[in-house]
């Protein structure tokens, strides 16, 4: 059994498999197995596998699924829903693009099994608009699976039915936040909902709904095919499975690497052709734009949700952004904050008004027009608006994490920017 179960079958040029080709590579065997079990047994296996969600928060998949009531027992009428989240817009993330483009049948397999375990009979795959090859690949694969009786009514004679649809999005990072995503699917502006009620209680059209990331869904079939013990053994830590890491920024060969959960940044950077620039590490973000900065001392940290949190960062999407010493973390922060400011849905004040303020100050620091009091504003915003619960959703807190860690770790560099702009660009540091 492969050490790269999730990506091992993918083709280098990303051409997706036809259904026949996929079946020739053991495709849909996991579905056959799952549908012979009860939904509770499927859920139990995923629980034992310790699969944490790969969309950012790392919430255990099975725990979320447990909240899904039998549709007959939920108030109102209508089906339970599954939403596969392929909005992927986190800076530095390019893993779901690959899984959608190259391995669409794996996503369908995972969706069938997840829907079965959560009593869902309608599944949406929401994909960001720019991922046209992924949208096309998913649509084609769904049509093939439908024609072969692997989707639709009474799948493989099990009595279980599932309709699956692709819903392309149309821009805006906030669509990826699960309650905003639900609003979007209902035909509204993507403004997050108040929780509780959680989507499992009242989600899409008021019905029990599970939202999972594309990568989470892509891992599910392997748990059913090879068992939870095997899945846990793939990992080097307590958190089960392999991870589709991504490495970009200042490395020689940026790309995707499927490796055991708990692989270190040192190994990932090495496998990415080593550092570019001057070859010396300044810092890295382990899990996309919203994860706190780590440095040399954390190069051997096993990268998973638990370890990154303990180190004062966040594993997030598990997609690293790497900076060598000739790259400025304040410049990186400026791009991130401009992005988060632009993508704020505008609902709550700390985020809507705070982020543009932060972004302007970072730009001013880079240009050399910032004033000493500006650093105090950055510190205040990170401390006051950063913590969970101070804004309506996690976009603001996520945006503040790299700012807070940046201020804590690179205070001198911030100060040096007050004296005429980026010292790295000016060549004085």
């Amino acid at each position, binding site marked *: 059994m492969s050490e790269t179960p999730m990506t091992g079958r993918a083709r280098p040029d990303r051409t997706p498999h036809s259904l026949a080709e996929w079946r020739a590579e053991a495709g849909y065997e996991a579905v056959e197995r799952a549908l012979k079990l009860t939904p509770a047994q499927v859920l139990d296996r995923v629980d034992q596998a310790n699969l944490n969600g790969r969309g950012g928060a790392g919430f255990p998949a099975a725990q979320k699924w447990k909240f899904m009531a039998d549709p007959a027992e939920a108030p109102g009428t209508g089906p339970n829903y599954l939403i596969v989240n392929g909005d992927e817009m986190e800076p*530095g993330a*390019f893993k779901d693009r690959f899984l959608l483009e190259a391995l669409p049948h794996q996503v369908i397999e995972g969706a069938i099994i997840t829907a079965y375990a959560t009593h869902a009979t309608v599944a949406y795959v929401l994909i960001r608009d*720019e991922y046209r090859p992924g949208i096309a690949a998913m649509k084609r694969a769904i049509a093939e699976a439908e024609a072969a009786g692997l989707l639709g009514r009474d799948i493989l004679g099990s009595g279980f039915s599932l309709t699956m649809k692709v819903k392309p999005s149309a821009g805006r990072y906030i669509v990826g936040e699960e309650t905003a995503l639900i609003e979007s699917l209902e035909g509204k502006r993507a403004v997050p909902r108040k929780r509780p009620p959680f989507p499992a209680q009242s989600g899409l059209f008021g019905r029990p709904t599970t939202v999972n990331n594309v990568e989470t869904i892509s891992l599910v079939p392997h748990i059913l095919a090879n068992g939870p013990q095997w899945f846990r053994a793939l990992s080097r830590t307590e958190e089960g499975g392999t991870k589709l890491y991504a490495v970009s920024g200042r490395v020689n060969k940026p790309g995707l690497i499927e490796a055991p959960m708990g692989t270190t940044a040192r190994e990932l950077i090495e496998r990415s052709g080593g550092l570019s620039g001057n070859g010396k590490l300044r810092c890295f973000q382990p899990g996309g734009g919203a994860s706190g900065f780590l440095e040399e001392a954390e190069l051997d940290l096993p990268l998973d949700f638990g370890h990154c949190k303990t180190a004062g960062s966040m594993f997030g999407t598990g997609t690293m952004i790497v900076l060598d010493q000739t790259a400025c973390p304040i410049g990186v922060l400026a791009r991130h904050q401009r992005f988060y400011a*632009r*993508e704020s849905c505008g609902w709550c004040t700390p985020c809507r008004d705070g982020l543009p303020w932060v972004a302007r100050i970072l730009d001013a620091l880079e240009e050399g027009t910032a004033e000493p009091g500006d650093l105090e504003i950055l510190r205040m915003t990170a401390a006051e608006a950063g913590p969970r619960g101070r804004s309506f959703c996690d976009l603001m807190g996520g945006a503040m994490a790299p700012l807070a860690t940046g201020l804590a770790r690179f205070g001198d560099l911030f100060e040096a920017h007050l004296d005429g702009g980026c010292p790295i660009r000016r060549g004085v540091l």
Partner: protein
Amino acid sequence: MSLPEPLAEDIRAAMDSFGGARPAMLESLRLIQHAEGWVSDARLAEVAELLGVTPAELDNLATFYSMIFRRPVGETVILLCDGASCWLNGADAVRDAVMARLGIGFGETTGDGKYTLINCACLGGCDHAPAAAVGRDRRLVGPLAPEDLAPLLEAAP
């Protein structure tokens, strides 16, 4: 001008597929844009009528979702990534070169109507940084270099 029948048919299919008129609104706007490059006031009104919603409701969505264009765009839309990984690999120089070559800034269209340049969030192409998405298919191009803009400008519309 009224809504061409194939488009109307696709919009009705979207209503069936996504659970009614409201959940099909965004997809309807996308369909119009696919066919015509952008969403005009006239089309917005026609789609609203077909869906049985008000034009204001539809515009409320169109103005929220950044990839729905409510102004005409050039034959080729260039979405140039302004994310951090691209910046770390020289995106600023590429941006400056494209702007100089086309004589336009972000959000603008060249006088001959050929190109529209738009800055865009991380395109999920950080392994091709600096990257852009070009044309109606949003084809990912990169790594780009300021001295060779052909991959950006010669891609099919």
